[in-house]
């Protein structure tokens, strides 16, 4: 989605890499290597993509075999459906609210681990292990931690003499509980990406700085962080696109009810509910497509922004 826009200097743009004279050896029968993948790709991505677009012009139902062509009616309805915009708002709020900590905490974790303090295995384990848990495990554990009466979080709060918080019951907090869960669960992934980037910084740079008498903080701000700019750009772009697709953890944490007062219903859950709970597959397709277009637009805007910031 962001291909080419953040390409490393000196890298060949995708699609052109192996073109031209280099592959003198170009073997024959190449199509047979590509064909199996392309067939599966066509059957389970391209065709559904086209089929979904066509569904969005019909009043297709989950439980009825006939359907009527309704033109743009689904799209017209979408624009006046307050629930579409409300759940989109929830999604955007979640994206902003989760991306910032997911990037910042990951960076801090990576910087701390990269200092080389003993126990590398342990730190990496502790920070990355949650990422390997299935979403169901994560949501069930946090349901239990957030539980109002017997949960660990409120237990700790009351131990500190603080009032209990309605993690899963207060409309103003419901979405932030999903953010907390998500940061805990997936920050390890960004942490690894930062760690890989940090390890790629040549040691000589630090050695030179040390000779110049630069202290730890100066090394951090004048060498490390500037060199991580590009990584941060990438991590932000990818995190935004990932956060926009919120569904699993919110759906499971709130057992399909959308959170207190619907405060944690992302748009993909509305698509699911429209299509599968209310049977309106045609309308759900229209919402999906609107969201798809929006995701692409956001990706393009981000690509443009990060290109500008690199100049």
């Amino acid at each position, binding site marked *: *989605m*962001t*291909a080419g826009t953040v*390409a490393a200097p000196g890298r060949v743009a*995708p*699609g052109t*890499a192996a073109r031209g004279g280099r592959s*003198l*050896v*170009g*073997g024959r*029968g*190449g199509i047979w*290597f*590509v064909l199996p*993948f392309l067939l599966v790709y066509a059957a*389970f*991505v*391209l065709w559904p993509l086209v*089929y*979904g677009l066509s569904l969005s012009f019909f009043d297709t139902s989950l439980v009825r075999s006939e359907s009527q062509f309704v033109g743009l009616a689904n799209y017209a309805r979408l624009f006046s459906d307050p629930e579409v915009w409300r759940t989109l708002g929830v999604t955007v709020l979640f994206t902003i609210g989760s991306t910032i900590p997911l990037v910042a905490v990951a960076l801090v974790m990576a910087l701390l681990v*990269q*200092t*080389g303090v003993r126990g*590398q295995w342990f*730190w990496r*384990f*502790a920070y990355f*292990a*949650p990422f390997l*848990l*299935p*979403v*169901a*495990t994560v949501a069930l*554990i946090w349901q*239990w931690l957030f539980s109002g009466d017997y949960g*660990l979080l409120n237990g700790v709060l009351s*131990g500190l003499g603080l009032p209990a918080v309605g993690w899963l019951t207060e409309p103003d907090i419901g979405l932030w509980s999903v953010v907390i869960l*998500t940061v805990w*669960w*997936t920050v390890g*992934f*960004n942490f*690894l*990406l930062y760690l890989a980037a940090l390890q790629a910084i040549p040691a000589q740079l630090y050695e030179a700085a*040390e000779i110049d008498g630069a202290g730890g903080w100066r090394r951090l701000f004048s060498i490390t962080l500037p060199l991580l700019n590009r990584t941060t750009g990438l991590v932000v*772009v*990818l*995190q935004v*696109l*990932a956060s926009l*697709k919120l*569904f*699993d953890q919110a759906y499971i944490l709130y057992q399909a009810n959308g959170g207190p007062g619907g405060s944690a219903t992302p748009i993909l859950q509305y698509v*699911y509910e429209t299509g599968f709970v209310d049977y309106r*597959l045609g309308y759900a397709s229209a919402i*999906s*497509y609107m969201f*798809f277009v929006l995701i692409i637009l956001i990706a393009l805007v981000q690509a443009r922004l990060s290109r500008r910031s690199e100049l």
Partner: protein
Amino acid sequence: MTTAPDTANPATTPLLPRARRPRSDDGPADVRRYTPLARAGIITALLVVAVLWLAPLIWALLTSLKQEADTTTVPIEVIPDRGFTLQAYASVLADGNLVTWFVNSTVVALVVTVLTVALSAAAAYGFSRTRFRGRNALFALTIAGIMVPPQILIVPLYRQMLAMGLADTYAGIILPQLVLPAMVFILKKFFDGIPHELEEAARVDGAGSLRIFLQIVLPLSRSILAAVSIFVFIHAWNNFLWPFIITSDPGLMTLPVGLVQVQSAFGVRYAQVMASAILAGLPLIVVFMLFQRQIIRGVATTGLGGT
């Protein structure tokens, strides 16, 4: 569907540890550069974060080891007077469903991994080392697929699977998970970097493309294939949305789906819920403990290109 970054970015391969990394995975920087005070601060911060990140897991583990009645005490008890028990594990394992889902998850994740890696590697080889009409256009089409979030396809895919009679079948769960264009991209990039001399020599000896692929390219690509396999396996093992949509028969559900959908007839029992949650999460955690280095490298290699 996880919120970890999951859109491919072809341009990130330079970050690969493989590309240029002067040091080993462990002890990356020189600790002696820090003053004792700074070191103390760093260690404290590392510990605080580690405690925050491990506490939920430890709490879940403790809960799963308690008697049901000890889970809901006010104030909370870390270690119950009556001690710990494996009763909750015995109950959830005796129920049988969990074992079924475990088998389903394993079968699905293994088949998805093997097929995805096979399809992607073959395609990547085709795009990288062979010539045929329309190659560049087809590669561009493949790369464009990175832009399609699988989540927006659930409705048409569901209809399609119904029409094909694949709802509630292994094939129905597996087939739509096999397409990860980003993996094709990553593998192609790697194959592009393999020196051509070996291949030319083999060709002179009369080897066909298939033999070159199987006997030269694949053996040289073990590390990247491992990385891709690890990524695909984690992805498939933890995938929720699609298996959730396409299965309604509890006998066919995967672990994450069954765990969420099917409840105990005896209401919420926290020790049992935590025991099943832990059993579902345990396999990958144990594998991670054993193969941390490989998994971290695999994820870092493929991460920015993953789906």
